[in-house]
């Protein structure tokens, strides 16, 4: 009895927003239902018709990003005083899922701006920095990016070889960052560089750099398998000079900022993966009704039914994990383990569901006439960026072992 009470409290009370309890997993609050519907309508009417074209042309959806900015979607968690929508992380994950269901590239553009750029500035920035680096990035006119990975280290984030040295009243940055999402379309970036090499990962600091900026150049746009409407490239820093006031957080805090940012960003990617999985499931289920073989719609065949069941199960399970992680974060409870679980489950669900969707569609799944092949290509990256599936497993295991500490 006492354990039950404790368990309820653990999931329990958040200030202001109302009781976060298990029933919300069964039915979302009205506010969230409304905003989910708005995002779904927008994705259906504005993103679905252009997604294939955006993918083919590797084109950044600037008009749509501005429209989403006007709706408040580019800065969901940012308080209204700074120009954002002032909503919670659950709302954010719902928004990213619904938009990704229409266009996965647009979903990641929204996610990176919200979680990876605005997130750390909101959490670690000074009031001055917030005004300068947040407000212009809430409208969709400008987007930001996050520069942590390097050609020499991805998962091994502590080995940052980009250096920052102080020269008078400036920081001078040198090094190369790799795989930076949004960078060709961004107006600012959060860069992680080593300020004290001998302190290892405690010697990394975070910096805000405007784009374009002297000393900062971009590598060629990567020709990716999927999410092609979002630009990915290297950021090259050669004696890039920024004012001292551009350091984000305290000196040496960079690694902590990166890890905490990725913890939250993970939920955004889980949401993106859910959107892709859902879109692939929609495609397959619709096809199962329409395509006939052996004298009946293929949806009547057990082989197809079992596939659809497994696909729906994988998606819904991952969705509940994602919602739970968001709710824990909103309730200011520890959420690292759940976020890692959500990202792992959702990304593996996305690749599984999109793979099976092609199988259900048969030959039609292999051609560009149907969106199944694009979902398959878009899904693959979700198991890699913002923490590979292997890293997620390590995070989960570490948390479990801590819980069972002898």
């Amino acid at each position, binding site marked *: 009895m006492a354990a039950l009470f404790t368990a309820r409290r653990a999931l329990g*009370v958040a200030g202001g927003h109302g009781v976060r309890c298990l029933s919300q997993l069964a039915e979302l609050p*009205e506010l969230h239902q409304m*905003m989910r519907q*708005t995002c779904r309508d927008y994705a259906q009417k504005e993103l679905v018709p252009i997604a294939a074209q955006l993918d083919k042309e590797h084109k950044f959806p600037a008009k749509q990003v501005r429209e989403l900015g006007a*709706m408040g979607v580019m800065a969901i968690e940012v308080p209204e005083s700074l120009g954002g*929508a002032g909503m919670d992380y659950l709302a954010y994950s719902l928004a990213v899922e619904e938009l990704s269901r229409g266009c996965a590239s647009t979903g990641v553009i929204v996610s990176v701006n919200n979680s990876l750029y605005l997130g750390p500035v909101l959490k670690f920035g000074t009031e001055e920095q917030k005004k300068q680096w947040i407000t212009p990035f809430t409208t969709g006119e400008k987007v930001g990016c996050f520069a942590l990975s390097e050609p020499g280290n991805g998962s091994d984030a502590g080995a940052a070889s980009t250096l920052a040295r102080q020269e008078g009243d400036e920081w001078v940055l040198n090094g190369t960052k790799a795989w930076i999402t949004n960078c060709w379309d961004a107006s600012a970036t959060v860069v992680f560089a080593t300020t004290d090499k001998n302190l290892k990962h405690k010697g990394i600091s975070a910096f805000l750099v405007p784009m374009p900026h002297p000393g900062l150049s971009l590598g060629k746009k990567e020709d990716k398998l999927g999410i092609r409407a979002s630009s990915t490239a290297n950021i090259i820093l050669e004696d890039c000079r920024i004012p001292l006031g551009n350091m984000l957080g305290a000196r040496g805090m960079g690694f902590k900022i990166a890890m905490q940012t990725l913890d939250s960003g993970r939920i955004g990617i889980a949401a993106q993966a859910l959107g892709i999985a859902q879109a692939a499931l929609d495609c397959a289920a619709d096809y199962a009704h329409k395509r006939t073989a052996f004298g009946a719609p293929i949806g009547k065949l057990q082989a197809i039914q079992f596939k659809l069941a497994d696909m729906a199960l994988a998606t819904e399970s991952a969705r509940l994990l994602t919602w739970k992680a968001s709710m824990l974060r909103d309730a200011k409870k520890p959420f690292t383990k759940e976020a890692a679980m959500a990202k792992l489950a959702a990304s593996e669900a996305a690749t599984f569901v999109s793979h099976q969707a092609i199988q259900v569609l048969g030959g039609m799944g292999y051609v560009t006439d149907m969106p199944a092949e694009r979902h398959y290509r878009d899904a693959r990256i979700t198991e890699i960026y913002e923490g590979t599936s292997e890293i997620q497993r390590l995070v989960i295991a570490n948390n479990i072992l801590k819980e069972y500490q002898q």
Partner: protein
Amino acid sequence: MSARVLVGVKRVIDYAVKIRVKPDHTGVVTDGVKHSMNPFCEIAVEEAVKLKEKKLVKEVVAVSCGPQQAQGKEIDLQIISNKRMTVGFILQETIRTALAMGADRGIHVEVSGKDYETLGPLQVSKILAALAKKEEANLIILGKQAIDDDCNQTGQMTAALLDWPQGTFASEVTMDRDMLKVVREIDGGLETIKIKMPAVLTADLRLNTPRYATLPNIMKAKKKKITTVKPGDLGVDVSSRLEVLNVEEPPQRLAGVKVETVDDLVGKLKEAGKI
């Protein structure tokens, strides 16, 4: 201009849903089926909000008739009062959508059960006319018709009951003090009329493109007031004068017949009694 606009919004089965007739042929299946705001009502709300943004109108009130929906109860730490007006428990999605688009407040006219099933333009127009007088509205904007019954009568009846001028099938509306210039879409083309407020307008497809609700507006909508009234409070009798005898699907399309010559065609048409 201190105009107050009443906008009627109807909750209908979503346009994308495949309609199915109930097995007892008394109507169509509505349980568990996706519903949304009638598209022409969305256009009406958008027009009203636009007028407010241009400062030609001071308040937009969204009105909808329907049962109290208990779904989506929000369990709130705040103490919920017993009064019907408490926003926490009553969920009228359609009114909230209008509020999220920019309407200032909502009125939910409670009509349930059999009365709701038989509610038609005559009853709704009586309700709107009564509300217009009660709320001292000088403009009523409605969708030209609902996509479920395609009646295209409510606007016209409301105007007649109030003895107000009407601008129906509006594709363009310009307000100048208390005069409205309305461009109407008619069979022969476009007709422009000038009417004096108070007046009733019904929105046609090309009047505007409804906006997406912004997230901040969705949040603000939560705090906007929705008051509940009963038709009896307005002195309106909602009993229907119509009885639905039967509802059935349109006949299945039959295969055609190919003929060799025009004479054969004429022969076949005569056979079928068509000419």
